[in-house]
């Protein structure tokens, strides 16, 4: 009888392990335990990064702010994709389906920014 029950126990245990990190009431980060769920921790980080972005945009005048702000935006996007969209723990096939067109799109955009026909960097 125990052998017949095993598949159910396996499924429930598997599902529980998949969501253990997100269902926990606390978040372990850099060795510390925060008294809030992972989703809330990510939200707080996103909020802090957004405020930082707006302040940097107002303070910095030179073009150095462009890669800086874009870097923060990419980090924020990555946080949402990894934790809210669960790409960190879900199947790698999902990541592949998303990242391949994303990388192609980024390369195409960089190409457009570089070629002379669009007034790009090498045409300046």
């Amino acid at each position: 009888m125990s052998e017949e029950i095993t598949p159910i126990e396996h499924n429930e245990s598997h599902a529980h392990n998949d969501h253990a990190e997100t269902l926990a009431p606390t978040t372990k980060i850099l060795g510390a335990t925060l008294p809030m769920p992972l989703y809330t921790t990510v939200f707080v980080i996103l909020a802090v990064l957004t405020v930082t972005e707006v302040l940097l945009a107002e303070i910095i005048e030179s073009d150095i702010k462009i890669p800086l702000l874009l870097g923060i935006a990419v980090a924020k996007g990555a946080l949402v994709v990894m934790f809210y969209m669960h790409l960190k723990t879900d199947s790698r096939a999902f990541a592949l389906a998303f990242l391949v067109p994303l990388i192609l799109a980024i390369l195409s955009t960089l190409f457009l920014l570089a070629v002379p026909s669009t007034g790009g960097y090498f045409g300046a």
Partner: protein
Amino acid sequence: MSELTVHHDSHAHDLEAISRISENSKFAMWLFIASETIIFSVFIAAYAVFRFNNKEIVHAVHEALGFSGTLIVTFNTFLLLTSSWAMVMGLRSIQLDNVKGGIRWLGITALLGTIFIGLQYYEYTQLAAKSITLGFETDAYEGFGMHFYAPTFFHGFHVFVGVLLCLEVIRRARKGHYTKENYVMVELFGLYWHFVDVVWILLFTLIYLV
């Protein structure tokens, strides 16, 4: 004992089926998101090329909007970030067998999405008053309007569709369609909503801050 075994076998089979459907549906949603990524990339690339070649025009627009203009959009950005958080908290509630709590969180998601659309409309009226328009001849900023409205309106349309989908998910949740073991549709809607959030994170930085 045999009845118990049949019950457990049937339950295990159901869970397996749900798991299989969930994985296939999520993969389909990721493929849809991949296609949306390409579409939004075209808008973003067009704006990036415009920005690269017309720094003075973009600076003039930012000057015209002022810090108060940035504040409105920053507030809107917070609304969307908070709605994404509410969305995952709703999913978490359902996974913890608290469907009523999940419905409340999803309600917040729909409400924040609706306010976002309302504020975007308000922003558009403010921009139109400053002669930032779609037409090349009427636009005081030589084409900025078209490069601005196309991605932001397309994104706003996605938020509008997202709010409608959210209301449908809430309706189904109220009818008892979701349990702690079966929440595939909630997760699929979440993927869509978070993608819309990610797009806004990039648009916000690229258009309003850079």
